[in-house]
């Protein structure tokens, strides 16, 4: 019995370690390549580090020395900050009202939001493109900001789940004490939603930092590259020079991986809450 259990847990460990290897391998090998010189890319196996004395950081220096990387970083941060502020502001208030109030046309408003979640991503840009350019937002940071604020609605689920756990008597007594509805929301409800807001911000950050398509489509200007579109451009410029591209890949991967390492708990719970929509 005991031996059987031991064998079983050994087998499970081996399977899990195999999974870790599969997850790590493409990243690790990219890291190896990023530390090689052009000559070592040819002379050494892609599966190994270069000999210790020939490990080079020149690829990283090259990427970090690229001015466009900073432009990309700055643009990503700007888009991210503005989108998050509006996402949180609109997300909290919308979820609060839908969860707590009954009003005329409520059914209609709720079904609008539901419809909004059904409409597929990517292909909607075919008709959205005209609206964005009609508003003069094409080739401005406004395009991704407006789209991120209006279209990704997962925050509503996270906030609604959270609000449903806050006691209604809190609202009632505040109103009886003469607090205005806005006062109630801003001073009492909003601060209580802080943990949910943290989850929303972290998950949205990852989605926005990683998004390629919206910035690629709406902001072709060099000055308006984000981290992700910067990498796309860099890849086209570095064709045939894997080692420098590899350094670029590692650098662009870092922000979300760091977010994940520090905020794993929020991310996992938020992802589950955003998926289970009933």
């Amino acid at each position, binding site marked *: 019995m005991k031996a059987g259990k031991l064998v079983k847990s050994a087998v499970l460990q081996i399977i899990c370690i195999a999974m870790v290897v599969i997850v790590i*391998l*493409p990243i690790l090998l990219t890291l190896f390549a990023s530390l090689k010189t052009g000559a070592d890319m040819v002379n050494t196996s892609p599966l190994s580090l270069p000999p210790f004395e020939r490990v080079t950081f020149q690829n990283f220096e090259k990427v970090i020395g690229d001015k466009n990387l900073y432009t990309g970083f700055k643009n990503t941060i700007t888009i991210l900050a503005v989108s998050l502020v509006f996402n949180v502001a609109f997300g909290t208030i919308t979820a609060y009202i839908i969860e707590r109030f009954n009003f005329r046309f409520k059914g209609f408003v709720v079904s609008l939001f539901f419809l909004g979640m059904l409409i*597929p991503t990517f292909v909607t840009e075919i008709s959205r493109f005209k*609206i964005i350019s009609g508003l003069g937002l094409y080739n401005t940071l406004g395009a991704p900001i407006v*789209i991120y604020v209006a279209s990704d609605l997962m925050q509503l689920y996270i906030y609604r789940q959270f609000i449903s756990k806050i006691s209604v008597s809190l609202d009632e007594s505040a109103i009886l004490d003469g607090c205005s509805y806005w006062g109630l929301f801003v001073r009492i409800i909003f601060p209580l939603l802080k943990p949910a807001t943290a989850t929303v911000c972290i998950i949205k950050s990852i989605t926005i930092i990683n998004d390629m398509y919206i910035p690629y489509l709406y902001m072709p200007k060099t000055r308006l590259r984000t981290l992700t579109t910067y990498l796309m451009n860099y890849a086209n410029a570095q064709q045939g020079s894997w080692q420098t591209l*590899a350094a670029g890949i590692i650098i662009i991967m870092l922000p979300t991986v760091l977010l994940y390492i520090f905020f794993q708990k929020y991310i996992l719970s938020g992802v589950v809450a955003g998926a289970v929509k009933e």
Partner: protein
Amino acid sequence: MGSIARQRQIFIFTALFIPVILLVCFVVFPGVDLFRISATNWDGLAADYDYIGLDNYVRMFNDENLWQSLKNNMVYFFVHLLMIPVELAFAVVLNSRLRGAKFYKTMVFMPYIINGVAISYAFSYFFSPINGAFDAILETLGLESLQRHWLSDPSIVNFVLAFVSVWRFSGYHVILFLAALQSMPQDILEAAQIDGAGTLQLFRYIQIPSIMLMVDFVLFDNIRGALQVFDIPFVITNGGPGYASSTFTLYTINAAFKFSNFGLAATMAVAIMFLIVFIYIIQNFLIHRVVLKEGRK
């Protein structure tokens, strides 16, 4: 009291005004407008265009490259479908008292949060025919005979890309299954264990039924995801060689933004919406009427 009711109304109106306007202008209206555009020959720029009825729909059904793309989507669908039992098994293992389970959980979800463009380039390198890492691995294992042009052989490129897709998204499903397992009442499990139920029996009679809703969601996510595969082929092969690794969404996007045929592209977008809703209804029927009903007998 009347003034509070009025205050309430003003509050609701002012609070919802901007979010609803944004939603209507940038999500609902574009979604609905796709139907109108699908009946035109609009090129995306011109101010005037003609309504051409169902011409685009006829053209879409006769478009061989689109059908080829849809077939490629099926590859992603089936590969991900085959992964569902594996994902479930991983969730069960990570839910057990396995040593290191926490670390494995961190690792299994990591690909999901990694920048998709960056990892796509990393995989281009991994499967590259020149100094590619995958070929090097095969060589180390003495399997040189298996070496292929992973990204340019039309008969395997979709499987390679589907593998990348599995690499990225399977962890998401594992975490969802894991959450479903963890939300299950522990006492039932323990009672069954005391009554002598083995791991397999636990899995079959207690864990599976209670996570059926999550399986339902993952299946739907799989369909939606498979139909909307875009960035992986876009970055790694750009649909090539020819249309060998094109996908429905990639083809649609190219029809609009590369070939300026917004009318036809909108038609395909409408088709994607219909396919998703249609499959969702069938799946719902199958799971709720057939599977769950059978379970009750």
